[in-house]
């Protein structure tokens, strides 16, 4: 590869869009004069990722854009708009061709079509159901953006809406066993909160659990594997726990059995225990060993959380009184980590390990509490100091005021050293 070839390639990539729009294109000329629906692709293509790489109408639809005559332009290479059932093959013509893709983006995968064929969408399309999603439903047709662009339909925070457009449509889903409340459920979940409120792009969206081109509902046995992609330590703990065998025997989907699927809420200690909000009671009957263990875990965790909140309240009080408690706040962050660890350990049902962790946490909390109490003592000392100083200064001010008045009276009586008339 010589320097000249590299320069030529770079120039092609950089100036190709200009060339594409600069040279004659009878497709654009004609479609610009047509009705809205047939005119729209021209405007949309200007912002399309394919146009950025210098591709134009003929690269997908064939034909000869150099010709003004409609018949000559629509020569035998002209493919026109593909039928819906043909779209995966239409796009796959290039996107499955590693050699063709290498010229534009060597890092882009070329297995989308083969993945699609294994997906539920692909299987149904093959069986003749043309209502299922094809490439254009998720990516758009003439305004396709790179998945890295926040405007793209496949950018993480747009994916729930992209999938939900079909999956929330009761009419479209009629006759299938697929529910239509996933989008609403997802929007209420802790994952959606992380994505939409904290703008955390690593928060899972539909395709992180279901796959994208090979989208398929995870089976009961694979749900846990899906969750473990992001929650590995929790998964490891669960595998070692007695619950693993029990869940397998019951045919329950590990994580999903307690946490749900689309509407996964922030986990709290309220899920553990024996009251009506806890999930343990779903399987463990009153008086059973599991029931007692759940109650014990809840007691321990509640006690720890109460101590944690009390320490945090102490710091908040001291802070509100103007004492800097940032060191203690850092220590409290360590305790937060311990609390999360203790809660996570419940997945392994290691009661001894949980008790040990809580005990470590309690020791740290004691340190925070001491710092908080010291800070409150400091606040009281400051207020007392201020009171004493203010009283002393007030006495001094009163003495000065009296002295000033006495001097003014003396001057009025003509005794003072001043009093001269200007």
């Amino acid at each position: 590869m010589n320097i000249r070839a590299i320069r030529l390639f770079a120039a092609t990539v950089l100036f190709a869009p200009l060339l594409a729009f600069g040279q004659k294109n009878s497709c654009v000329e004609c479609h610009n004069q047509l009705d809205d629906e047939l005119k729209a692709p021209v405007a949309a293509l200007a912002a399309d990722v394919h146009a950025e790489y210098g591709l134009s109408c003929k690269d997908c639809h064939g034909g000869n854009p150099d010709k003004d005559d409609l018949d000559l332009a629509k020569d035998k290479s002209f493919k026109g708009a593909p039928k819906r059932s043909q779209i995966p093959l239409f796009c796959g013509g290039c996107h499955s061709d590693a050699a063709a893709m290498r010229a534009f983006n060597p890092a882009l995968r070329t297995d989308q079509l083969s993945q699609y064929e294994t997906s539920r969408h692909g299987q149904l399309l093959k069986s003749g159901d043309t209502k299922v999603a094809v490439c254009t439903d998720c990516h758009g047709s003439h305004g396709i953006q790179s998945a890295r662009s926040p405007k793209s339909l496949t950018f993480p925070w747009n994916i729930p809406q992209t999938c939900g457009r079909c999956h929330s449509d009761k009419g479209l889903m009629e006759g299938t066993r697929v529910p239509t409340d996933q989008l609403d459920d997802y929007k209420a979940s802790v994952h959606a909160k992380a994505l939409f409120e904290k703008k955390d792009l690593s928060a899972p969206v539909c395709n992180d659990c279901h796959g994208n081109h090979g989208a398929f509902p995870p089976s009961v046995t694979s749900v846990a594997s899906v969750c473990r992609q992001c929650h590995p330590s929790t998964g490891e703990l669960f595998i070692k726990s007695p619950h693993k065998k029990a869940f397998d025997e019951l045919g329950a989907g590990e994580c999903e059995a307690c946490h749900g699927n689309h509407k996964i809420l922030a986990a709290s200690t309220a899920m553990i225990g024996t009251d009506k909000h806890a999930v343990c009671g779903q399987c463990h009957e009153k008086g059973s060993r599991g029931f007692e263990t759940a109650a014990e875990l809840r007691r321990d965790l509640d006690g720890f959380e109460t101590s944690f909140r009390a320490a945090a309240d102490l710091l908040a009080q001291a802070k509100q009184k103007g004492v800097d408690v940032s060191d203690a706040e850092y220590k409290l962050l360590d305790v937060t980590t311990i609390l999360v660890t203790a809660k996570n350990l419940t997945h392994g049902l290691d009661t001894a390990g949980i008790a040990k962790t809580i005990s470590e946490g309690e020791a740290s909390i004691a340190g925070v509490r001491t710092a908080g109490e010291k800070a409150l003592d400091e606040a009281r000392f400051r207020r007392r100091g201020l009171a004493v100083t203010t009283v002393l200064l007030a006495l001094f001010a009163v003495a000065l005021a009296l002295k000033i008045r006495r001097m003014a009276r003396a001057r009025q009586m003509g005794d003072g050293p001043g009093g001269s008339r200007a």
Partner: protein
Amino acid sequence: MAPKIGKSVWNFLDERFLLSQLIAFGKKKTVPEHRHSFWYFFGGICLFLTGIQVATGAMLLLYYTPHVDAAHESIRFIMSGVKFGWLIRSVHSWTANILIGLLFVHMFSTFFLKAYRKPRELTWVTGFLLLVLFMAFGFSGYLLPWNELSYFATRVGTDIAGSLPFIGNWLKTIILGGPEVSQATLSRFFWFHVALLPLAALTLIGIHVLLVQTLGMSKPIGERGTKDIPFFPDFLYKDALGWTLILVLVGVLCVFLPWEIGTKADPLAPTPLGIKPEWYFTFMFTTLKIIPPHVGFIEGEKLAILGFMAGGLLWMMIPFLDRRAGREKRSPLFTWIGLALAAYIAVMTVLTYALPKL
């Protein structure tokens, strides 16, 4: 024996420092007393607060570290680890703000009493320059804790300086010590704050006080039949009463609202919403925000900056422009100009906080 030694020491010092003459001058010095003499006290209070600034600033130097990796931490240590560090820093920050507020009061009271008229023109000019210097103290000191607000406010402030025509980029680079707020900026601001500005301020304060002492206090135009009171001890006692009350106020503020440390500055973080400079710069800041992008053929922002500079210069030259006051005649035009300026500063400052999305 002891009185004899004391007398010898006194004589030794008196011969060298002419103390007897100074005391005689102090005893003879008088201050006019009339219905506006209340405003005389603001000069003394400002001087008192400057003294507090010097004392507390010197103490803070013991623990403050002017480095981007340690500045914020050292302030945190001062506030929580150093005995009475919280008090020293809070006193320093609160008195700095009160001082600038009172400098404005002192300046406008001097203006409305027309105390700048002949022969006190230079007292006014040095006073105005001192206000500018103290605002520069505030600007440089604001960055020293290296927290998020001060970091971004400095960036915004220096960007404004950078938009000046012709010298903008050069000036911005000089202030920042480079193209952006960095260690070089912190070092410079520290040097401005503890070396250059104090030296300049002490020189100007010296001239200002010397002029006040030699020329005496100005009587308002048309104020007849005023009597004089001795400076020592009568006026000084009244001054001391004001200082005492200010001390109580500062104490209450420091205990109930200790000066915040803020979050450590992160140069890679996005600029937080609603960033604004210290309150005494907000009238200029809001003007820059509301001025149209273009006024005639010139950029609005540049026009506003040039306007502030020209306005400041004219304000400093007021004693030489107000000829009527120089002839001991009332000058209502200048009084109205002063009122308009005071109202403009007050309205713009209030707007900054009342309508932050302006």
